């Protein structure tokens, strides 16, 4: 941080931050004018349809497109053969990560084998979507059906069907010696768990299972690609990161990044599921082939069957504590599936499983396992929710066994500044203890809960905020309004939370900033909207942009007053020098009136240090013992936001994450039949919560400033989904005495558990 940052750190009163202005893109979004990818219409545009595998696992013997291309109005058909050969460069190095290009291409259009039902095999472009569908039906694909597997533990067995014959288990650079579906074995160890468990007066060990669930964004994946005669490729996308989309497309098509322009449209939800490309490269190949813009839009069943679920998982968690309620040791064994290609979210799962607690001795083993499902993708705090479902129930069981209040037990062991995580690093200032105290003092926790079959549960949740690169630029207009161009796609109102940080820095109003999300030609590289980074990292860029603009305004003022810039004092947006002063707007007016150099600023950052966000959730439930149906009576989410830039949207993140988590807890799951076909690939049978299924979600925002951000901002987007399934399960245990260790806790499952108990 530069010295100027300290001016703001720890500051408690702000002019703009903490207020609740109407979002800048609001009018467009309530009038139907906002343009989402599926709304884009271009002259002469063709419509595409993807041909998908009906099998969970099969070898492609042949693809015959001859009948399809004969149909009048069919313009182009593509298959994996249309991708450049990527074998030669299967690994793309990049700071903090890598991705296997051949796998990425094979996920867009299958090469040789199909690895899950719905796996794309070919694509067609035609005059309209109905014709494209008819043509797709005419493409004949011959398959040799292979045995398949969709449960993580089955996929780990020696005799399991292999997805990739050449795969070997990687253990930090050391490769296994036999073919397997286990892509990765991670291990973290701290202290000495043998000694730790010896010191324990009580030890609880349990096993947990969770089904795959989907991010469930309401907008299906959609794109329009135009491969122009000048060889420039322009893509309108529904993506969480225009630059990451551009990078993937350019790599898959083996063209320079600058040859590709990605226009990020308004995005109808992502939650981690709109990072990897599915349609964009295929639309590009079709467009190149038929010389027209090509639109591809997924149907809902395609979204379920072929895009990123979160892992199904098996977890074993063991914790020991003294009779005084101090944790002495923890051990966890996690197996997460990653679907058809390696690279799931087992790492954060391992790093989060014990992250809420001061644990002197711990060991975590984690496995990344392939099976015949779509390649898993990030879903809001990827890997953390499954881990918390397991750990927070064992914590609850320990507290109960020791006769200690579950909230007090968590307070006794809560992670705080200086706590060393099982993966090594030590926490800076974090807010878990403050969240637990807020829970303890909440009206919800203090109100008694009475009535039969009712129970109250509590659980804690943790997630990281990542840093990485963000850019923005701004220009000051003659009327004092500032245009802000930033590179973070806006999924939930971040335009406004970023604009507010610029306004705060310049001492102007939120409405005096006009934020817009730039395309990849009009703003500097900005990493995707994910990892709870946008308000934190792009907000930091906006702050630095503010300092740049302010310095230029100061310099122009100095020209006007014929003095040194240093002699111009700036305070809350007022520029002054002995007696004479100008507001930001007045000064902006003078600058254009006198024809001085226009004020145009820019900033780019790559903040180091991923910070940490904690939350605590409380739920009251009622169980119908005859049907196993759970009703959530009351729900409160508490979270450390560092500094809530726009409290309404911070609350919105907490409420939305809580309800997604409630759906994960009670009903949502990928239901596979014996042939490993998903049987509930529709909103009807996937059963996300409707507004009739949840109560109002009460929120309490805790503010423990983030030391690595000038305004103390922490990312808030992901943490809210971590605690809910554990919170609900703990509440159900209180209500019924039954410990539910499998997600979802659906009515038949709970009814069965209850009838077995009695």
């Amino acid at each position, binding site marked *: 941080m530069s010295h100027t940052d300290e001016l703001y750190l720890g500051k408690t009163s702000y002019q703009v931050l903490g207020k609740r202005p109407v979002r800048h893109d609001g009018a467009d979004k309530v009038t139907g004018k906002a343009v989402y990818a599926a709304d884009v219409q271009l002259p002469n545009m063709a419509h595409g349809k993807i041909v998908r595998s009906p099998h969970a696992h099969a070898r492609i013997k042949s693809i015959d497109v001859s009948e399809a291309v004969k149909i009048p109005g069919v313009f182009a058909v593509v298959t994996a053969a249309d991708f450049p050969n990527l074998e030669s460069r299967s690994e793309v190095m990049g700071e903090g990560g890598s991705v296997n290009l051949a796998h990425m291409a094979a996920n867009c259009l299958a090469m040789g084998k199909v690895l899950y039902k719905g796996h794309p095999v070919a694509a067609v472009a035609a005059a309209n979507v109905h014709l494209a569908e008819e043509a797709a039906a005419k493409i004949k694909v011959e398959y040799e059906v292979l045995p398949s597997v969709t449960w993580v533990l089955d996929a780990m067995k020696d005799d399991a069907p292999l997805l990739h014959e050449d795969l070997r288990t990687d253990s930090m650079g050391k490769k296994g010696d036999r073919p397997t579906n286990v892509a990765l074995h991670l291990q973290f160890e701290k202290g000495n768990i043998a000694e730790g468990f010896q010191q324990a007066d009580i030890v609880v060990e349990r096993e947990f299972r969770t089904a795959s669930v989907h991010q469930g964004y309401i907008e299906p994946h959609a794109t329009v690609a135009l491969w122009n005669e000048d060889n420039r490729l322009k893509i309108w996308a529904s993506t969480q990161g225009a630059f990451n989309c551009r990078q993937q497309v350019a790599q898959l098509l083996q063209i320079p990044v600058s040859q590709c322009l990605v226009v990020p449209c308004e995005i109808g939800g992502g939650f981690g599921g709109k990072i990897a490309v599915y349609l964009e490269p295929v639309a590009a190949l079709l467009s190149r082939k038929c010389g027209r813009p090509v639109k591809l839009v997924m149907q809902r069943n395609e979204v379920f069957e072929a895009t990123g679920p979160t892992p199904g998982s098996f977890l074993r968690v063991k914790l020991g504590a003294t009779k005084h309620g101090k944790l002495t040791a923890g051990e966890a064994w996690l197996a997460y599936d990653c679907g058809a290609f390696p690279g799931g979210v087992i790492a954060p799962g391992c790093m989060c499983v014990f992250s809420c607690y001061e644990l002197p001795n711990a060991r975590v083993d984690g496995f990344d396992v392939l099976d015949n499902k779509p390649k898993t993708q990030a879903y809001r705090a990827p890997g953390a929710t499954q881990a918390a479902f397991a750990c927070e129930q064992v914590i609850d069981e320990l507290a109960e066994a020791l006769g200690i209040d579950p909230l007090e037990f968590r307070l006794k062991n809560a992670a705080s500044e200086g706590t060393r995580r099982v993966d090594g690093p030590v926490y800076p200032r974090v807010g878990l203890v403050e969240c637990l105290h807020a829970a303890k003092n909440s009206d919800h926790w203090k109100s008694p809960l009475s009535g039969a079959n009712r129970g109250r549960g509590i659980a804690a949740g943790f997630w990281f905020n990542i840093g990485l690169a963000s850019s923005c630029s701004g220009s000051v207009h003659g009327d004092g309004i500032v245009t802000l161009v930033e590179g973070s796609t806006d999924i939930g109102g971040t335009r406004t939370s970023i604009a507010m940080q610029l306004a705060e820095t310049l001492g102007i109003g939120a409405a005096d900033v006009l934020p817009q999300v730039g395309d990849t030609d009009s703003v500097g590289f900005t990493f995707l909207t994910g990892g709870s980074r946008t308000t934190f990292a792009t907000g930091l860029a906006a702050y630095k942009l503010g300092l740049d603009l302010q310095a230029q305004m100061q310099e122009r003022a100095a020209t006007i007053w014929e003095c040194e810039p240093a002699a111009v004092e700036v305070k809350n947006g007022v520029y002054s020098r002995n007696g004479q002063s100008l507001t930001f707007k007045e000064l902006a007016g003078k600058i254009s009136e006198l024809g001085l150099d226009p004020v145009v600023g820019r900033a780019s950052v790559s903040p180091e240090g991923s910070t940490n966000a904690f939350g605590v959730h409380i739920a009251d439930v009622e169980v119908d013992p005859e049907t196993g149906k759970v009703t959530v009576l009351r729900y409160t989410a508490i979270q450390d936001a560092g500094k809530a830039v726009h409290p309404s949207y911070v609350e919105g993140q907490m409420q939305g994450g809580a309800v997604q988590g409630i759906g994960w807890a009670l009903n949502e799951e990928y239901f596979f039949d014996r042939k490993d076909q998903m049987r509930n690939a529709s909103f009807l049978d996937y059963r996300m919560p409707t507004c009739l299924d949840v109560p109002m979600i009460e929120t309490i925002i805790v503010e423990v400033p983030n030391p690595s951000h000038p305004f103390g901002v922490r990312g808030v987007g992901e943490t809210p989904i971590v605690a809910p399934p554990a919170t609900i399960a703990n509440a159900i245990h209180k209500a019924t005495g039954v410990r539910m260790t499998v997600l979802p806790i659906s009515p*038949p499952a709970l009814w*069965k558990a209850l009838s077995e108990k009695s």
Partner: protein
Amino acid sequence: MSNFDYAAPTSLAQATALLEGAHGTARVLAGGTDLIVQLREHLRDADLVVNIKKIPELMELSYGSQLGLRLGASVPCYRIYEHAEILVAYPALADAARIVGGWQIQSRASVGGNLCNSSPAADTIPALIALGAQCVIAGPQGLREVPAESFCTAPGRNVLHKGEILATIVFAPPVPFSGSAYERFIPRNEMDIAVAGAGSWVKLSADGTTIEQARIGLAAVAPTPLFAAEASQWLAGKSATDKTFERAGEFARKAASPISDMRGTAEFRRHLAGVLTRRTLAKAVERARG
């Protein structure tokens, strides 16, 4: 969706003529909330789609305490539960019409369409069975009547022959001291397909203590919506007590022959048949007592 021809006749005669004369497969479009999805997902095909919402008598909803209820096959569900007298006279029908999908579905979907779609899980059919509704079918040879419990013959199949249309559903006038109720079980609180459903109708003795007659219909526990004959007959003459409702539930459980699928296990469905029968009987009796 494959393309098809479309017609919107304004009389039953035109409609039956269109259906009978159709080359290939002709489908009737009432609310369309099932048909359009099935055509889109290639679960059903059609060369001709006949919209019957322009036929006046099929959009007719008429009630008289002496005449009973005549419900045109295309009358959307919302018109049923917004009808004050139906709420009192045929509460089970209103219970069911109110939970067929959400409001947007109820604006279009009709009870007649629900019958003709002939899903084992249809919410309104157990209510029709419990209320002893008659289905009036119009065809080239004129009209014929079929009791609601005999209308469906297999999942997605029914008694309609080519050229025939379900025209009207007829309900006898409500008898004194009678009441009815429909309940289903779903994991969410709206929008789901019934895991199981039960509709009950009872006629009590004047003093409200004894069940003189009862009819129970079940959903999603057999290949078609089911008339629980044994349970219904057994109830006649029994005192209207929780014990009786419980016992009737056991009969319903026995009558059920459900399957396991993504919506529930056979074991769970059979159990629910009992629970819902008991619950709807209790509610029907309560309503009968007024």
